């Protein structure tokens, strides 16, 4: 029963209000992409023990999708942020670095 703060309406939402949407910051591949690119886009996902970036929707609230950075092992939440971005903002990355120096995720550090 995680608690995540919705960055749009500011509500500290309980998991029953939220809908999990899987990994964040996927790059869409459409027509023109190779079989490998499209396969990876559809199916290949990170499975980290530690820092992870996810998409969540405040489904039983304001209805907005947002991003969350959290630790899959300790369930610590480093921060939530807008869904309308290609990568985590600097303040989120700084918050993670403060708690998990040397963290990596995909090609992020």
């Amino acid at each position, binding site marked *: *029963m*995680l*608690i*995540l703060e919705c960055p749009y309406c500011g509500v500290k939402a*309980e*998991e029953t209000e939220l*809908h999990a*949407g899987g990994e964040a910051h996927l790059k*869409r*591949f*459409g*027509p*023109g*992409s190779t*079989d490998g690119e*499209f*396969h990876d886009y*559809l199916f290949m996902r990170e499975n980290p023990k530690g820092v992870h970036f996810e*998409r969540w*929707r405040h*489904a039983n609230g304001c*209805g*907005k*999708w947002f991003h969350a950075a959290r*630790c899959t092992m*300790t*369930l*610590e*939440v480093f921060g939530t942020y807008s*869904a*309308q971005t290609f990568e985590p903002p600097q303040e989120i990355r700084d918050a993670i670095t403060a*708690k998990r120096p040397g963290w990596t995720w995909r090609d992020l550090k």
Partner: protein
Amino acid sequence: MSTRLAKQGRLIDRNKQIEFTFNGKRMTGYAGDTLASALLANDQMMVGRSFKYHRPRGLVAAGSEEPNALMQLGSGDRYEPNQRATTTELFSGLSAKSQNHWPNLEFDVLAINNKLGRFLTAGFYYKMFMYPRAAWKHVYEPIIRASAGLGKAPDKETKDADTYEHFYFFADVVVVGGGVAGLQAAKAAAASGAKVLVLEQNAYWGGRAPVDGGTIDGEAPEAWIEKTRAELAAMDNVTLRDRCMASGVYDHGYVLGYERLTDHAPGQGGPRHRLWRIRAKQIVTATGAIERPLSFAGNDVPGVMLAASMRDYVVNWGVTPGRKVVVATNNDDAYRTALVLHEAGCDVVRILDARNNGGGDLMEEARQKGIRVECGRAIAKVSGGKRVKKVAICAQNGTGGAQEEIEADAVAMSGGWSPVVHLWSHCGGKLNWDDAQAHFRPDAARPPLGDNGKGFVVAAGSADGEMALGPVLVNASAAGSKAAEDAGFPAKTVAAAAGVDSVEAPMEAVWLMPAQADIGLRMKSWLDYQNDVKVSDVQLAAREGYESVEHTKRYTTLGMATDQGKLSNINGLAILADSLNSEIPQVGTTTFRPPYHPISMGVIGGEARGDIFQPVRKTPMYEWNDTNGADWEPVGHWRRPFAYVNKGESVHDAVNREVKNTRENLGLLDASTLGKLVVKGPDAGRFLDMMYTNMMSTLKIGKCRYGLMCSENGFLMDDGVVARIDEDTWLCHTTTGGAESIHGHMEEWLQTEWWDWKVYVANVTEQFAQIAVVGPNARKVLEKLNTAAGGGMDLSKEALPFMEWRDGKIGGYDARAYRISFSGELSYEIAVPASQGLAFWNAIMEAGKEFGVMPYGTETLHILRAEKGFIMIGDETDGTVIPQDLNLQWALSKKKEDYLGKRAHLRSHMADPDRWKLVGLETVDGSVLPDGAYALGEGINANGQKNVIGRVTSTYFSATLDRGIAMGLVKHGPDRMGEVITFPGTDGKTYEAKIVDPVFYDKDGEKQNV
């Protein structure tokens, strides 16, 4: 014999007698008794039989850790199996039955398993029942099913007569446990101003302290407990709840409380159980400790009991399990039991202290009272069958030889204490091994973490590993202060009450008694009473290569019973560690999972049952439908009429009547549940071109188009008619079940992929009532309404052609009429504001009388569309079907560069010519194919099963054609027209069907286009 003592019993009221029955026998107890203490008072030592060997079993404990005394309580609609006698408060009229025996408790046929013990060792399920294969189904499985399980499940037709509820609560600090540590911690936390909730599982406060003795602030513990409880109760920021157990701690400070409101007083009204759904900033676990049994032969004979539990029975309820008691221990606490028994007039025939040097002050006190204490000695074996008769004594450091045998009728054992770390551990709190006390205790440096990365659980008192009264109170006070501070309240130090207790000598770990017990003794030394796991089983598992404690647990079933190993876990893993020549902390514990103690299924459901199990969505015509014969069908949260059944008519007949009448005269369908999404904005067309496989941006204003939606991996997910309303507005119809999910799907893409596109989506499904007016007389009835209203929308073929829509008035109602047809008939789907829906429906029904109007339900809707070969999402699709499988290539735009699913359709398996494709199926004899049946092909597959080449997706009796019709997906189907294929049914029959065109009726579409 076990009996009620003349004195003692601080929790019972001897002036209030209570009648109850056990296995039909009338018995008497007192107010304040538990069922367990009342059974002991009636000399009912044996309370059940064990799970595997059906050995006679008695009470071992006095609380929730009791493994044996599981009862079937009540009868009829209040019957419930597997209730613990120790946690059941006695009430007048209680009726209990023991379980796991046949034909009765005293004489049990399956006790033969006891004699077969050497065949029923660890992993016996895996070893014994492997061969021959056929024997599994016909011999082993029926026997196991008949003999396994504990109580009988309640009758499936009987509904629980009680009510249950959920309750939400928010607290700064939740203190779990109302013993002296919990009360002290609550006092410290509350002093800071934090909102504190204290949960106590028992009906009384103070935990073990009144039984264990000592003084607090110079008084008897009971005086301090009552004073502190009253102080807390008077504070505005404190809530106290007894009979309320915290059953689990979950992520980010979520706690479940299980309050038993009327179990002790049935019939008083109100809910029976209440589930507290609590959000806490901080949680203090003051959950105490549980005593461990000693592993000696015959430690499961009725009359062998945990020493402190025996003390509980004497002090709390004034009962003793025996008059001649042997005490066996490895620590000082058991001496308290000996002293209490002695004080109560029982004969403590021997104290066997496994430690060579014995104990401290308490041992001296026992000796002064004349009790014979022997150090370095052990129990070799307890014998007696259905109750303790003899105890054989030997040296602890030996194999069990040189025995002296003495008579006794009860044995008190103590193997030391384990802190109750379950709640600490549920959410990831880590443990340290304490070698001096031979137990795991919480590691304060590694607590479970909240969303802020800081610990949210603090252990207090003996749950934190403190075992003496003084340190318990100091520890608890600090825990309460810390919790309040971590919850954001200014630090406030509260002086702990001063606890004074006897000085104790160190305990010594004893994992087997005697230390080198021979195999004969080890095979009778029980670790897990409820699941019948012995020392020899765990040793065997280790010899067979089980090194992980989690694997050993599952192989031997150690700790997997309903008590979840509260007594057995530490002893079991000590034996495992020894067998592996390892250390206990290296072997580690199994995972602690909620609930701490079983909670009722009723309380989990709460109020959500019967009519209010979930909300029912009703269309504006719901009441009309209900009073006009609707045979209701749930569709999502909606209820839709399956058919409108007339008096004296079967549902099947009603459906056939509706089908024929709609084709021949006039049918009305309540289509209000159909999803309606308004998509609007400068980029709406571009957006819909991505959402649908066909082109929507080019749709002309006033026109409709049937569209398909695929997921990104190409599978068909929804369909429906899209209407262009104005330059930047489209209205998208979805399936009934898809309204919310497709709305969510659109929002997801808009918010997370194309967030710069200017589009709004609004779900207006419930804003409109929608009525399909269908059949050759459809236009006539609507024109009659317009005539009566003095004019209205021109509904002629020329003014409103097929696949177009118009806004206007029909019969005086604000209407949007779509010329679309899911039946193949002349059809108008008319949306009116929901508030006008019922009146409009009534108006058509009235005006339609002369045209033979009848309402029709979802089954007729399905048959009409199947006769026309139209697909239905959820019938022809199941998440693995693509438009090409359904011959819908025409709806896949070739002009568009991109849409969801386009790239996926190029993947090799999607383009595989062997994919099953949609065809019509006609049985050779006209019968109806079974739904979901598979078509047989040639040969067998790698698993020896017959190859299948297709399956039935929709199948109906068509009243129009007077025969069974079906659709199905068949390998190379469209190329095999006219071929006959076979479908085995689950009824033993085989059906033969010819592959045909899926359009069974009006192939040229002449009827809808008039």
